[in-house]
């Protein structure tokens, strides 16, 4: 019986169970125009990686709880003290001191605006978002940087007010747990698993 690879940590060591790869046989590549001579071979590979979020784990955990966390440099000696970073930065890019983690859910709800966007008709392998994907980049009041994400409802436009939604049910614990909808969207219109 095969089982998806799963991991937990105990005593600071990875404990793994299940299958982290799947076997598929090699097959020859032959030349149809030239007597089916051998040109090469397929090399199948399907692996599961074990990835640590490190100091960003707090951000990804919070998404599943309906909170958007950011960070702020509070180092009194830093020239850019008070700068708020979203995407979440573990360390201040200037003084390299550890940033303070802050909850910016309310700031996002009140001030999030589309800075730019892109409706993309294509995707790569392993994509699980519905196409076309509506990429949006969101600016917030008082935040030094801009956040890349995706719009779940409606058509994006620059300057459009949006509010965050969170995949609290069945979270993926990835950046996909955070999405956005136009301000004024009703709770019952949200995609499955998402809430404000």
């Amino acid at each position, binding site marked *: 019986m095969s089982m998806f690879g799963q991991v937990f940590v105990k005593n600071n060591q990875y404990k793994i169970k299940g299958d982290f790869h799947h076997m598929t046989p090699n097959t020859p590549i032959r030349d149809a125009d030239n007597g089916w001579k051998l040109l090469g071979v397929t090399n199948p590979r399907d692996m599961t990686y074990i990835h640590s979020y490190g100091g960003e784990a707090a951000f990804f955990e919070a998404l599943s709880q309906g909170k958007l966390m950011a960070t702020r440099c509070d180092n009194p000696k830093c020239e850019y003290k008070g*700068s708020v970073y979203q995407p979440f930065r573990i360390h201040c890019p200037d003084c390299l001191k550890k940033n303070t983690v802050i909850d910016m859910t309310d700031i996002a709800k009140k001030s999030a605006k589309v800075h730019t966007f*892109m*409706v*993309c008709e294509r995707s790569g392998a392993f994509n699980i978002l519905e196409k076309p994907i509506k990429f*949006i980049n969101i600016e917030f009041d008082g935040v*030094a*940087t801009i*956040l*890349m994400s995706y719009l779940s409802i409606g058509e994006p436009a620059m300057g459009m007010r949006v509010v965050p939604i969170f995949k609290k049910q069945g979270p993926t614990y*990835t950046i996909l747990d955070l999405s956005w909808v136009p301000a004024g969207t009703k709770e019952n219109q949200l995609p499955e698993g998402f809430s404000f």
Partner: protein
Amino acid sequence: MIKFSEQQLQVPKLMRPVYLVTAGQSKFDRAFPDKRTEELCVDALTMAADMLSMEPAELKKYIHTCYYGHFADHFGDQLLGEAVIHDRLGLDPLGNIGVKTGGATGGSTLWEAMKAVASGYSDCVLAMGWERMDEVPTDEGNFLISCAADKDWEGPLGHIYTGYYAVMAQKYWQVFGKEEESFRRTLAEISVKHHGYARFNPFAQGPLKITVEDVLKSPVVAYPLRALDACLMSVGAACAIICDEPTAIKLTKNSKNKPLRIYVTAGSHTLRPADRRDMEIPLLPNETAEQYKDFGKRFPGGDRYPGFTGFLGARMAAWYAYRMTGIKDPTEDLDVIELHDAFTISDVQTYEDIGIRPYGEGRTYVESGDCYHTNPHTGKPGKLPSNLSGGLIGCMHAVGATGIMQTFEIACHLWDRWAEMHGDEKRWKEFNRKKPADWTDLQVKGAKRALAISHAGVGSHVTATILMDPDHLLKKDA
């Protein structure tokens, strides 16, 4: 970083003059089911030797160190691919190193090679770049390319690089292009130009005789960008030989190649375009702070610099390069250029980053006809022809080789050998490609100075390679 220190703005200086003496490249194509990467690298090095009227074995005797540009190990499914190529080129046990900076890998490889010679470590080095992008189907290829974006913050969003990249195009399209139909047509004109020039280049993968209408009718990839606005995905190799002055003189003794002075500089910017903080525009020698004072008024929404519309990495590469070589105005001081046209719109963005036009006015470089070999409005030579190879849209984008292909191309103009390298019937036949009946010699007459921009993804790494005829330097001690 949003403010520079004096130390960070140090103008680069080489310890001794460095020369490009020859270059070579393989055929470029979407796939080579019948060739290994090393066969393409051998083709490139053999051609470089040919240009010096030498046998490869003879040229190899001069090589002291090797720099290998190869971006995506996971595409080729071979770690330490550099060691494989190095062995197959028969260059063991010389020191070698791999360079990888995304789309800028080729340029970065030249950057390192130049420094090895400038420092005196080596008198002659090989810079060789390649990419193998045909070992997975397109969907999986898109996934692998998307691994060059931040894997936690961007990758899961569709696993499609276009999505992370094209948000910048959208911003530029709306703020500076003002969503004008005329601007959309100007973008299409770039694709027509590059696919058209590729028709005269036997190495090129994407020759097409198309019209603006064809581009505008091609499938939407990410509005306003369409399939014909995008660069190619390629396999191929390119190389260059970089050396000091005495070696350059020896190597070119029996060749039409005149040793060319080479200068390479580099800039960078965050992998996540969203992570850009606002700053003042670093000015090039042909710009003033005054001209950008009312920028936000002229282009509403364009007041954040670099925002999502400027490639700061390209701006800094040009900033260092122009000061290093004495370039005051690129349009006046350069004769031919190759830019990293990943998309038609990024070509326009780059015109501004490197000062061919001020920020916000890039489109006029195309609309004036200055960017053509022959200006279509006047019938006279274009003021600063760009991407006569066909660029990434018409010729190739075999990532690790791209920046070196561009350098090969501009060098051919400075050597006055463009027609010979691109017009030879034998080469067209060997590549199984048909030389068009209207093949045109695109040699830029009397070219003395040239530039190539090599650029990674959203602008994480950018290099500027400048070649100059040593008798036409702009700065004596450069």
